[in-house]
């Protein structure tokens, strides 16, 4: 079958990948594609097969079935060293016996001496550590080790960069800062990337496209805003978080809940259904459903009030200067009529 233009341009194509460990399936018929310069994030709870997917792409695991194509080459049986992938490991896996410069030049054996030196300097510049080249990994901080690991992976100019939970060993403060730096470096390197994380916020922030995985399958793929705005089912909505799931019954084409009704989006009459309500979808009004403020989370830029309505708890976002004491009776309603609804 002749390849069409768009198919041949994909940097990575996985088709029907299956992999089981000791009889327990980790990946089931997984399909995945990554385009040139695209950053794809794989998110999902632990044990959903994200890391296994990455290891199959890198050739560190041999899949039981399916095909792996990298830059148009069939790679299923190719050893890792011939796949042109860069891997950033969760624990960085820097070689403890080599200096930073030696670590970075490890994958540059094919280059001439002077070119190798030039490339090492170039990459260390890119990650902002030009003065650290003679240090040993154990003399660096966690964030610096992270950047060396990244420099080492991009130095050979791989077709595809694979990042396995790259920030799981950094504290949250540092994580936010390093995330932007790393993202900029990956963009600047020009490689396509697959970025694995269990942190859904991170997955949405860094990616051009997001794939949500569950039990070895890709259960939803789309741009970050698509995933955010229209999760495909209650499970994805729950995983992405930052929202309450409100139950109701469909009547006259509307889903009726304790907070009013929304469009039922074709769910049959009389059926039980759920609507995803994010804090910004709840507004305080003169006439609406009565509730009681039970908690306040103050995060600086806004206040999230937890409101109890008919025994269910709902979150409502307000500007940071709106202060409502605990126990106050308020009335709320849904801001919009078009919210994600799941049967």
């Amino acid at each position: 079958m002749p390849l069409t233009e768009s198919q041949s341009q994909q940097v990575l194509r996985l088709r029907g990948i299956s992999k089981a460990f000791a009889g327990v399936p980790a990946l089931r018929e997984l399909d995945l594609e990554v385009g040139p310069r695209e950053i794809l994030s794989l998110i999902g709870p632990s044990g959903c097969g994200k890391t296994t997917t990455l290891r199959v792409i890198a050739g560190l695991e041999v899949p039981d079935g399916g095909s792996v194509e990298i830059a148009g080459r069939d790679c299923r049986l190719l050893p890792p060293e011939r796949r042109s992938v860069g891997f950033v490991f969760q624990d960085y896996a820097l070689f403890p016996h080599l200096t930073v410069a030696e670590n970075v030049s490890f994958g540059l054996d094919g280059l001439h001496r002077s070119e190798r030196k030039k490339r090492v300097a170039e990459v260390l510049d890119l990650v902002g550590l030009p003065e650290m080249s003679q240090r040993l990994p154990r003399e660096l901080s966690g964030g610096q080790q992270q950047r060396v690991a990244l420099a080492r992976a991009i130095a050979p100019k791989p077709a595809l960069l694979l990042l396995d939970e790259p920030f799981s060993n950094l504290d949250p403060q540092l994580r936010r800062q390093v995330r932007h730096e790393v993202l900029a470096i990956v963009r600047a390197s020009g490689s396509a990337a697959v970025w694995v994380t269990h942190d859904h916020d991170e997955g949405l922030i860094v990616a051009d496209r997001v794939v949500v995985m569950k039990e070895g399958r890709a259960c939803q793929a789309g741009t970050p805003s698509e995933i955010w705005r229209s999760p495909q089912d209650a499970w994805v909505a729950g995983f992405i978080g930052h929202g309450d799931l409100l139950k109701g019954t469909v009547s006259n084409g509307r889903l009726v809940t304790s907070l009013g009704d929304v469009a039922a989006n074709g769910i049959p009459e009389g059926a039980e259904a759920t609507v995803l309500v994010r804090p910004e979808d709840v507004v305080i009004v003169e006439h609406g459903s009565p509730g009681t403020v039970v908690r306040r989370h103050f995060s600086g830029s806004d206040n999230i009030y937890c409101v109890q309505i008919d025994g269910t708890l709902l979150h409502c976002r307000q500007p940071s200067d709106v202060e409502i004491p605990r126990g106050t009776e308020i009335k709320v309603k849904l801001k919009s009529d078009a919210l994600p609804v799941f049967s």
Partner: protein
Amino acid sequence: MIRAFGSGTGELAGVVLRPRTLGLLIRTAGLAVAVTAAAIVIAVPLAWFTTRSDLPWRRFWGVATALPLVIPSYVGGFAFVAALGPRGMLQAALSPLGVERLPEIYGFPGAWLVLTLFTYPYVLLTTRASILGLDSSLEEAALTLGKTRWEIFWRVLVPQLRPAVAAGGLLVALYTLHDFGAVSLLRFDSFTRAIYVSYRGSFDRTAAAILSLILITLSLLIVAAESRSRRRADYHRIHSGGGRRTLVIPLGAWRWAVFAGCTFLVLISLGIPVAVIGYWLVRGTTGANAIEPTLTAAFNTLRAAAAGTLLCLLAAWPVAALSVRHPSRMSRFIETSSFVGYALPGLVVALSLVFLTARWVPFLYQGLALLALAYGVLFLPQAVGAMRASLLQVSPQLEEAARTLGAGRAGTFFKVVLPLVRPGVLAGSALVFLTAMKELPATLLLSPPGFATLATRVWGATNDAFFARAAAPALVLIALSSVPLTFLVLKERSQEESGLARDGR
């Protein structure tokens, strides 16, 4: 084995059930138990004092108390016989005071004393390594829970150290069971001596084979017991490698008492042998003509030990790599069977190799290769153990990282794995080399004709009570053995200082 079963069951039962055999069994096992217990009693507190307390000259004692390991038991045995035996140096010195008789050195007390003094460093070294790897935060946690030092020692430290103490104790027990030199010199009738006598003396090879089998069975039982205790204790190691700050605990008024204890121990375990050897070296009239044969023997010793070590390393690598990287029932089996070497007395391995080669491969018989092979079989477990431990510290992710960066299997091995395991492998080699140099019975039985090593020269001379002739080779042997041991102890020190934060888990 073939010998034993070739003899027919009737004879087998005859030898096994002989009352003499039962007596041998009780005596040998009793000695092993007594020596192991004494070694643990000496070594465990010593390990603690030399790592955790403010003992004066702590670092010096760290090295000095490990050094008796370089003195082969037959050298120690001869030193104690010369010093404390009838008409020995001590009695000669005391006779003007009217002391006519000293407590009997021959038999059980002497063998017990000598073997304990020269094997306790096994327990010392394993326990100390374990203490250095412990996480002090556990002790700190216990302190904040209101426990006293003494309670912490028993309830926090001892349970965590148990696997290390058991491993060291295993080495001591097996050394005692397999020792041939000291028990022979001190005229203690143990299994090895009986085997040697029935082989050399009466050429009763069947009896020798049967006694060997009993000895091997006894050793295997001990190995099995130890590995069982180790399996149960695996979870104790969860915390190793955490915070590496070592708490130094002030001993207060006890400092100088412990100092005196260390001095006394080093004086009798190192001072007596060195003094006795020095005395005979000076007194020996053959001083000048002893130099050349001693040099030849030293050269031979190094050659044989080097060949054995090399063989050991080559055989140990695949076993260790397989068991660490591809754990399976098969690799476990291979690893376990390599540990059988622990249970095989040198004497028995030598006898069986003599028997096998004389019958089937005569061109190997009495060649250097055969001696190296015996060393290989005997010391394989030590080499496998060292390699396994260092390989376990190399995270498989490092190998994977190298692969994704374009290095093939061979490239990964030479550029990543080998540099990282080198310190551990060197330490293992030093240990094998040290043990091979000291090895007596296998060397005695398998040396090519005219091939004298330091061990065989010392043995030959002391057996004939020519102490003066034994002095030079014994001294050279001790000096040569000190080199790898010092290397080992210093490596442990540097590990303690750098805290060696290995990357990757």
